[in-house]
C-alpha cells in the first residue's frame, strides 16, 4: 500500500520534471506567462480607474493573476493529451503500468506551479505601472489560499482535459469554455452583478472560490479565509474523483476505438 503510493508519487515527480524540461525548450510560454498577464492587468485596472472605482485596483490585479493561472492551466495542461497523441507517445504512456491520470497530474502540476509567475507579473504591473498600494491583509492566508487554488484549478483542468481527449479540436473547445468560466468565477466583474440563477454554477468552479479566498485573505472581502480554503480542498477532491472516473472511461474508449494515434 505504502510502496504503491510511493510509486505513484515517483511517477508524479518524474512527469512534473519532464514537463518542466519540455517547457524550458518552448518559447510560447513566455507569451502566456509573462506578456499576457501584463496586458490583462493594464486593461482590467484601467477599466476600474476610468469607471471611477480606483479602490478596486487590488481586486483587478488578483483577478488578472487568476486569469493568467487559469489560462496557463487550460491552454497548456488541457492540451497535454493532444500533444502526446500528436507526438505518438500516448500509446506508450497508456501501455505503461502506471495509471495515465497520474502522469497527467504530474504534468499539470508542473504547469500550475510555473503559472504562479503570471500572478507575480500582475502584481508587478499593478505596483509599477499604476503605483497601486497592494497591501495584503493576511499574507500567510494569501499564500496558502494561492497554493490551494492552484491545486483546485489543476484538478478542474484534469476534468476538462478528459473531455479534450475525446474531442478532436481541443483549441476550439477551450475558446468556448474560457470566457464563461472567467465571468462565472468573478475574475472580470464582481460576482454581485451575476443573475441569481447562475450562482450555483459559480459555486462549482474552482477559480471563483480561489478568487474569493484570495480576496478575503487580502482584506477586500469580509470572511474567514480558512473556511474557504477548506471548501477548496473538498472541491479539489471531488474534481479528482470525477477526473479519475472520466479518464477510466476515456482510456477504455480510446482502446476500443483505436484512437490513440489518430487525430
Amino acid at each position, binding site marked *: 500500500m505504502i510502496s504503491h503510493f510511493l*510509486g505513484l508519487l*515517483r*511517477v508524479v*515527480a*518524474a*512527469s512534473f520534471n*519532464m514537463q518542466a*524540461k*519540455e517547457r524550458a*525548450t*518552448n518559447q510560447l510560454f513566455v507569451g502566456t506567462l509573462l506578456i499576457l498577464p501584463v496586458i490583462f492587468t493594464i486593461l482590467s485596472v484601467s477599466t476600474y480607474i476610468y469607471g471611477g472605482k480606483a479602490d478596486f485596483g487590488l481586486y483587478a490585479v488578483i483577478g488578472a493573476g487568476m486569469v493568467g493561472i487559469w489560462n496557463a492551466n487550460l491552454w497548456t495542461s488541457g492540451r497535454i493529451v493532444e500533444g502526446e497523441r500528436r*507526438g*505518438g*507517445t500516448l*500509446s*506508450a*504512456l*497508456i*501501455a*505503461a*503500468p*502506471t495509471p495515465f491520470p497520474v*502522469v497527467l497530474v504530474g504534468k499539470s502540476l508542473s504547469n500550475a506551479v510555473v503559472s504562479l509567475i503570471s500572478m507575480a507579473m500582475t502584481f508587478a504591473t499593478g505596483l509599477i505601472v499604476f503605483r497601486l498600494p497592494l497591501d495584503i491583509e493576511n499574507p500567510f492566508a494569501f499564500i496558502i489560499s494561492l497554493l490551494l487554488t492552484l491545486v483546485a484549478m489543476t484538478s478542474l483542468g484534469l476534468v476538462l482535459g478528459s473531455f479534450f481527449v475525446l474531442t478532436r479540436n481541443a483549441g476550439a473547445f477551450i475558446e468556448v469554455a474560457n470566457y464563461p468560466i472567467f465571468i462565472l468565477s468573478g475574475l472580470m466583474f464582481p460576482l454581485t452583478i451575476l443573475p441569481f440563477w447562475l450562482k450555483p454554477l459559480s459555486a462549482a468552479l474552482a477559480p471563483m472560490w480561489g478568487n474569493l479566498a484570495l480576496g478575503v485573505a487580502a482584506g477586500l472581502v469580509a470572511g474567514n479565509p480558512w473556511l474557504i480554503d477548506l471548501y477548496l480542498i473538498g472541491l479539489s477532491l471531488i474534481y479528482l474523483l470525477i477526473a479519475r472516473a472520466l479518464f477510466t472511461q476515456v482510456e477504455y474508449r480510446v*482502446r*476500443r*476505438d*483505436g484512437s*490513440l494515434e489518430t487525430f
Partner: protein
Amino acid sequence: MTAIVIENLGRSFVTTTGTIRRTQKTVTALDNVSLTVEPGELFGLLGPNGAGKTTLTRILSTVLLPSSGRAEVLGLDVVRDAKQLRPRIGMVYGGERGLYWRLSGRDNIQYFADLYLVPPEVSRKRIPELLELVGLKDRAEERVEGYSRGMKQRLHIARGLINDPDVLFLDEPTIGLDPIAARELRTVIADLHNAGKTIFLTSHYMYEVDALCQRVAVVNKGQIVMMDTPAALKQLVANLEVVEVECLSVSSEAINRLRDHPRVEAVHVDNRDQVQVLQIQAPGGVKYVPEFLHLLDGANIQKVVTRQPTLEDAYVKLLGKDAISV
C-alpha cells in the same frame, strides 16, 4: 507455459467519412487469427500494407481491444489482465514518432524507467547498458530532434527494454533505415533473442524474417495465409525457377497472357526507377524463356536472367497479386 496464445482473434474499425452526410464503413483488420508463440522464440509476422500486423501488435501490447476472440501473453489475458501484463512486456514501434523530441535520449529512457517503476538502483545500471547496447552511449545527452532516423529507432528499442520485459513486440523496427543501419539493428534483435527474450516481430522484408525468425506467419487482409519455418516456406517454391525479365513498357495484357501460360504459377511486377521487373515463377522455367519472351512481344526487353527461388518468391506465390505493395 506458452508465451503468446491467440485464439480466433478479430478486430474491425468503424470509420466515418463526410461531415454533413456521414457514412460509416467497417474495415476488418484482423479476421479470426489464431497462433501460438513459445517462450524464447523469435516469431515473425510478414504481410503487405494494411494486412493487420500493427493491429495485432497493438492488441497484444494491451493498447487496443479486440472485437472478438481472445489473446494471452505470459498466461495473462490482454484485456482482463492488462494491468498485470503491462510491466512484463515491451513494445517498439518503427518510425520516428513516439519519443519526446525536445528531450535528450537519456531523459527519454529515464522517464520510462520511472513510469515502469524500475528501482533506481537497477535503472542506474541498466540505462547505460541499454544505451551501450543500441550504440547511443556517446550521443545520449543530445536532444532527440537532432538524431538520425536510425538513432531514433534504436532509442525506441532501448526504451522498450527498460523494464527488462519477458516478451518484446517489435513493429517494423527497421522501416525506413538504410541497409547498414537495418543490419545493425538486426544484430541487436538477434542478440536479444540469444539472451532468451521472446520476440514478436512484424516486417515487410523477407530477408529480415529469413535471417532472424524461427517461425513466420504470413498475413494478408487480416488472415493468416501460412505459418511455418522460413525453410518450409521456401520449400513451397523449391521446385520452381524464377525468370526475371527487365523491360521498359510492359502492358497489362501481356502480363495476363503470361499468367495464362500453363507452366506459369505466378507473375510479380516490380516497378523500379525507370524499368519494370517481371518475376515469373515456373517449374523448369529456363526451358520456356523463348515462349515467355514471345508473349511479351513489344515490352522493350532489356535483360533476362533465371535464378533460384527465395523466400520472397514464396511470399509472392502465397499472396498472388496482393504481394505488389511489398
